[in-house]
Each structure stands twice: as C-alpha cells, then as structure tokens.
C-alpha cells in the first residue's frame, strides 16, 4: 500500500477547435492508492472526463497531452507503446461510460461484449468468462442474471445497461476503473440501485476507482476522497467527510449553495378564479398503447406546476397533449375556460401563441444555421406581425430580458453559445410569442447545477414580471423544491398525487412519492448506507433483489 497505483503529475491537456489548441487541463496532480475511490467533481467543461481518460493514457481525437506524466503501477503510460497500453486497457484499467446505451455496441449481445475483454486479453476462456459474467450480473443485482447477457442492448433498460457495463468493466478484475458520470442519465430511483451496486462491487474486489460526476451528493456516497475541478484547475482535494463538513474554497461552497435556491411562497389562489390551463380527465394513446389515464390538473396565472415522475411516467406525453401535438383520446384541455381544439392544426393563431414550449436539449431545439436574432425574430413576426425596425427592437428587448447583450449576441450562431446561453435563447423564443403559459420540458436537466440555477432564477423573475404560468416537467426534486407552487406526481401515465408544494414535501405521502423523495441523494456520506438499511436491502452484495 505504499506505492500509489496511479500517479499523475503536472498533467496538461489541450483541445483543438478551429485549428487552435487551447488548454483544457492546466497541470493537475493526482494520486490514487490501491482500493481507493477518488471523486472528481466539477461543471461540464471543467475537464473531468478528459482527465479521467488521460488517467488511462487515452485522449479523444482533437485532444492531446502536452505535459506531465501518468504512471500506472510504475508503467509510464505516456511513453508506453500502443501495444503495451492495449495490454493494460480493459485488463488492468477499465472504463464505465456515461451513457451505457450509447457505449454498448448495438450489433452484439451483452455477453459477447462482456467476454471480449477477457478472451482477447487471454485472462479467461469464453466459457469461464461467461459463467463469471453471470456471477457478476447476480452480484450487481441484475434481474434474470442467467439470461440477461444474451439480450441485445436495446432490449435492456438504461439502469440495467449501466450495471451490465460495470460488470463488463469488472470482467478482467482490473486494478482501476474510471466511472465517467455513470448515473447522470438515470432516474433517481434507478440511480440508487446502480450506485449501491457499483459501491458494493468496488468494495468487494478492492478495486481502485475514479468516480467522475457533477453531482456532489452522489460523489459523497461513493468516494473516499474528493477533488474539485474548475475550468481545468484543481480547486481543492480533501477527504470526503472533511470536504462536506468544511469546504475551504469559495467555489466549492458555491456548489453547495445551488441547492438552497428557493422561491418565496405565493399567496393562495383566489377562490373561483378561472385557471389558465385546465387539464380534464385526459387519456392518451400512442397507436393502441395507452399512455395516459385520466390525467387532470389546473394551473392558475403566475403560478408553476411541477410534473414529476420517472422516465416513461407520461410527463412529456401530457405536455404533448396540452400543446396539441398528440390529440387526447378522451378528456379535454381548457385555456382560460375555453376548450382548446385537441389538434394544434385546428387551433387559432392566438390559441397557438398562448401555449409555448421550452425543450430539454437546447442544442437540438435551435436551428444551427440561424443566428440568434433570426431565431427570436421568427415568432415575433409570425405571431405579432412585427417587421423591420419594430421587430428588431422587440428582439433586442427580449434579449435584454434573458440577460444577454443584444449587440453582442444578435448575430451569433447557436454553436457559438454555451449550453446555458442556448437554453436562454430557447426561453426568449418562447417569450417572443407573448404567451400566457409555457411548458418547460426538463429545461435544466442537461445543464450544470450553477447554470441550471441561473436559468431557474431567470424563469422565476420572468414569471413575476410577466405573470406567466409554467408547467415544469422534471425528474429532479431539487428543481421542484426551488420553483414549484404545485406538484403533480405521475407514475405509469396516472397522477399518483397532486397538491401544493408545501403539502407534498411533508408527510404523509403516497408510497410512490415517498420513494421518489427519499431517492434524492443527500449531502451526507452515510445517506446511501442508511437508506438501503432502511429499505431493507443488504448492501454487501449478492443479496436478493429488492424490487423497489
């Protein structure tokens, strides 16, 4: 235990864009002992993933290591030949990617991909590796461990794939595993299962790990030590408990602060007021598959309803029904007390104008070939009929409302904006129609916590200024706490529970709401252990599957 397993010294990395090399990591030292788990935390763009890959001696296209050393168990990875590195990768250093769905080859069964490493590296025969895989699947509490390996990736759910990928990383019993945001794409309830599985198996085989994430609460459960990165520099490194108890740097403290944003409570709705949007007993189907059952809720002016639930619970489908993209099979939707035609093609321009959407992926929701000015100007012209100088003035005004300087941003293309800025443009585009009601579909889930908080604050301010009503679709309960007035909890296409936020966050809860609430990681290193104990799951691996 005296010699570190991984020693990185003064590592500098550069990335190329438009033929110019700019720094990503500016000289980082990292030491990892055998069996130790190091949490690497920071916003996106902080260089966490790049650093994680560099620990494997690997860089993506357009990235290069231009200074420093990476030593794994005494082997200099940067000087090693390609063959030497190939012999280490997969066998002694393994990688678990953020999106298991994208990182499993769609053309091969899980098992074929699992045994590939051991067989190619000559660690085990195919039969040995297959029975070992089944053992690992069992340890990771995958359902039907005997058979699941013989499925294709698209036949397995995201959370299960993430565990299968962890099993694959374990296939050669490596000394070190790099976990690159393995639970970021998962629902809170699924996240817990994956976190618990990963933690157990890493402990059981005494594997060292680097755990990369942007979620402090998650890393608190997983890591022995935490290293905070900001724009390619190390902010601080400390033992997990020490850091959580007493972060020394301002930036680290600000990461904590994000979760504290909360809107003041609004006065109660006037009795008898006509709701802006009223969803009444809506059923919906995709083809013949029913996806929504008897969904009802009201939303009043200037208020926010948060619709929460796991993926597949029907949140987005409800939004599609309201927007008229998916005409409901039964029930109706009222805008200001007037029945809206179910199909958006049958709605008047004014009805269309009143209901706007902001999307999760600002990246794909903005036309990459249109400048910011044109993107915002389109609805201004289409809905309000403004042209020429008046239109330009209105666009400038909208840009100011979203706190972006018109002269600087008017002519930029989406590719020249950061993720948070793109999402602001999405907001401005929705505002341009001067709507009453905006559907925000997971608008912050692709953003870092600090940026997301900025977006939430902006939305709150706009709501106060313009008396907007929001339907906030999210799976993140921290967001709900921050912004909602009312909460609708959905599961399997049904509303499980609804009511004012204060009531919803106080017991007693519907069992499903309780599960959702308790699944949100907390900033306490013992949270996961305690929670699992409470739920009666044996977290020392190999135990019976607790169907949560």
């Amino acid at each position: 235990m005296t010699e570190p397993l991984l020693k990185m010294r003064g590592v500098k990395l550069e990335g190329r864009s438009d033929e110019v090399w700019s720094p990503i990591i500016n000289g980082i030292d990292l030491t990892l002992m055998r069996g130790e788990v190091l949490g690497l935390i920071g916003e996106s763009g902080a260089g966490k993933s790049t650093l994680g890959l560099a620990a494997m001696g690997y860089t993506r296209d357009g990235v290069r290591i231009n200074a420093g050393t990476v030593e794994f168990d005494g082997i200099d990875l940067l000087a090693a030949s390609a063959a030497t590195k190939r012999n280490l990768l997969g066998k002694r250093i393994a990688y678990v990617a953020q999106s298991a769905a994208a990182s499993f080859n769609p053309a091969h069964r899980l098992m074929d991909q699992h045994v590939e490493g051991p067989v190619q590296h000559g660690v085990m025969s195919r039969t040995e590796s297959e029975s070992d895989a089944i053992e690992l699947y069992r340890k990771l509490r995958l359902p039907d461990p005997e058979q699941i390996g013989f499925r294709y990736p698209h036949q397995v759910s995201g959370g299960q794939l993430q565990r299968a990928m962890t099993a694959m990383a374990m296939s050669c019993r490596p000394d070190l595993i790099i976990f690159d945001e393995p639970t970021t794409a998962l629902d809170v309830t699924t996240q817990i299962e994956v976190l618990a599985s990963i933690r157990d198996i890493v402990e059981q085989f005494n594997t060292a790990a680097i755990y990369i994430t942007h979620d402090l609460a998650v890393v608190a459960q997983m890591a022995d030590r935490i290293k905070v990165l900001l724009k390619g520099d190390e902010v601080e490194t400390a033992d997990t408990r020490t850091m959580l108890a007493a972060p020394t740097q301002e930036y680290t403290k600000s990461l904590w602060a994000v979760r504290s944003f909360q809107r003041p409570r609004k006065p109660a709705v006037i009795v008898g007021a006509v709701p802006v949007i009223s969803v009444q007993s809506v059923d919906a189907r995709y083809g013949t598959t029913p996806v929504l059952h008897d969904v009802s809720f009201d939303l009043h002016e200037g208020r926010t309803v948060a619709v929460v639930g796991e993926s597949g619970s029907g949140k987005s489908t409800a939004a599609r029904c309201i927007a008229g993209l998916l005409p409901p099979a039964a029930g109706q939707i009222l805008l200001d007390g007037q029945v809206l035609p179910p199909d958006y093609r049958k709605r008047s321009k004014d009805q269309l104008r009143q209901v706007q959407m902001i999307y999760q992926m600002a990246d794909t929701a903005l036309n990459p070939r249109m400048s910011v000015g044109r993107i915002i100007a389109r609805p201004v012209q289409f809905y309000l009929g403004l042209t020429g100088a008046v239109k330009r003035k209105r666009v400038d005004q909208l840009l100011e409302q979203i706190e972006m300087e018109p002269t600087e941003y008017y002519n930029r293309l989406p590719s020249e904006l950061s993720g948070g800025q793109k999402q602001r443009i999405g907001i401005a585009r929705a505002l341009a129609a001067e709507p009453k009601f905006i559907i925000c579909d997971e608008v912050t889930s692709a953003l870092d916590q600090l940026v997301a908080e900025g977006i939430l604050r902006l939305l709150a301010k706009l709501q106060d200024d313009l008396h907007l009503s929001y339907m906030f679709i999210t799976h993140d309960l921290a967001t709900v706490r921050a912004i909602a007035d009312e909460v609708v909890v959905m599961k399997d296409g049904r509303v499980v529970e609804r009511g004012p936020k204060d009531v919803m966050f106080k017991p007693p809860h519907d069992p499903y709401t309780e599960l959702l609430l308790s699944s949100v990681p907390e900033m306490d290193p013992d949270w996961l252990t305690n929670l699992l104990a409470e739920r009666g799951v044996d977290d020392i691996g190999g135990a019976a599957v607790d169907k949560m």
Partner: protein
Amino acid sequence: MGNVLKIILQRLALGMLTLLIVSVVIFVAVNLLPGDFAESILGQGATPEAVASIRRDLGLDQPLVVRYFDWLGGVARGDLGSSFAQANFASFTGTNSGTKTVADQIAPRFANTMFLATVTAVIAVPFAIILGIMAALYRNSVFDRATNILTLSSISSPEFFLAYILILFLAVLNPILPSLSNIYDGMAFGDRLEKTLLPALTLTLVVTAHMMRMTRAAIINLLASPYIEMARLKGLSPIRVIVRHALPNALAPIINVIALNLAYLITGVVVVEVVFVYPGIGQLFVDSVKIRDIPVVQACCLIFAAAYILLNLTADIMSILSNPRMRHPK
C-alpha cells in the same frame, strides 16, 4: 419477424407497381423513336405499300394502347412475344417454323451477362470491402491516399480505355489472358472463366471505387461513436475495433452501394461487351434499338428494370436484417 415479412411483402408489391409503370414508360418511349421496324428494315427505297404490309403483319398499324395491352397480356402469361427481326427472316424463307421467340433470343445472352456479373461481383465486392476496411484502418496514411487516387482514377477513366490498358498489359505485352471473350454454348467452365476474366477485371476497376469509398466512409463515420471508444478502451486491436465493432453497424449503406453496383453490372456494360466481343445482353439491346425491334427492346428493358428493383429490394431487406432492433424486437 412477422414485421420484417410484412415489410418485404409491401416492398414486393411496390416493386411490381414500379415495374408496371416502367413498362408503360418503355413502351411509350420506344414508340416515340423516329421511324419503325418496317422503315428501318426496308431502307430508303421502300414503297409505302411494302411498309404498310409489314406493319400490318407485325401489328404495328394498331393503336398504341391496344398494342401495349396485347404485349402486357403476353408478358403476364410469360410470353415476351416474337422478335420482329426473326419473324421477318422466317417469312422470307417461306417457313414459319424457324421463328424464334424473344425469350429464346434473350435467354442465352442473359445467362452470359449474369455469368460476367457474377464473376465480377465475386472479385470486386470482397476486394472493395477489404480495401475500404484497410483504408479506414490506416486512414489519412499513404496507403489510404494511394487507394483513393487509384480507385478514383479508374472510375473516372472511360471503360474502353481501362479495357484497352488491361488488354495491353495482360494480353499483348504479357499474354496471360485472352483479349477476346467470344464465349459460346457448351464451353467448359474453366475456359469460359478464363475468357471472361479480362472483362471482369475491367468491370472490377469500374465498380470498386464506389463500394470501397462507401465502406471507408461508413466505417469512419462511426469511429467517433461512444461504443467504438469503449472498444478501444477495452484494449482491443485496431483491426478488431473496425471489423467487429464498426463494420456490423456500417452495413446498411455498404449493402445499398453494393446493390447499386451489381445492378450496373447487369444493365450497363455495353461498352465492355463491345470491346471484348462478349455476347451479353447489352449488345443485343443496342442492336435491337438500332433496328427498332420493339419486342426485344421491351423485354430487355423489363429485365433491366426487374434486376434493379430486385437488387434494391434485396439490399433493403438485408439492411433491415443488419439492424438487431429489427431482428430482435423488445
């Protein structure tokens, strides 16, 4: 699988419909050509009576629509009709027993064309794919560039030029292969193959570039995918990463380009046939157009169209089957 079967049946039905439309287009287009068989066979000194008599014999005096449906009815019964040229020849000799049907005339030629296409495909398809894989593996290397330049130059040169170059090097300067491909019925397979090799090599040069470049591009396109990165991070060799992890996911576009080139091999090799005196269907087709032998022209066109449609259908089905989501639904 029921899903896939449904798609296949749908495509087949669509293919039949396309074929029907194609037949109308062919029929109209051929009839739009100036002059007809009677005029071209009788030459400039023909009397109007002689022309009219031949037209009457061949049914050319009937309205277009009637002739089309006569012909279509025949095709539906599997009768492609009789060649004008052969019928004429028979009536001059006073016997009708020697009349050759279009089917008799086309069958051996078509068999020859298929033979040439098959030999070429057996050489060209694996060659192009292996070349494409190697180019993707050593992308941007000297090998990659050289392959690109060579295949592009060969596709950019006229076919007859390639053919003469090959004849020069492989038949004249180094007499390894025969320069004439005058194959005939009852020839031993080995001889037939030897005679076919030079035109097959010429065609290989013509079709390789397209398939090779698509293979290379389709693979390289996938190299930035997370699962390719994963394969690399598992310490797999570069060749394994490409052949096992990239290629299976790149099959759909490659299959489509292969189908397109195979269709070309069946329908578009007239020039090569002429250079090597190869008795394929292309030459027959051109000759028939020259003398306005409409039944033969129509039959050839129909075969060409059917070949295109069938090959594209096969490519579609194989692309669908190459996707595990289609083979193994949830």
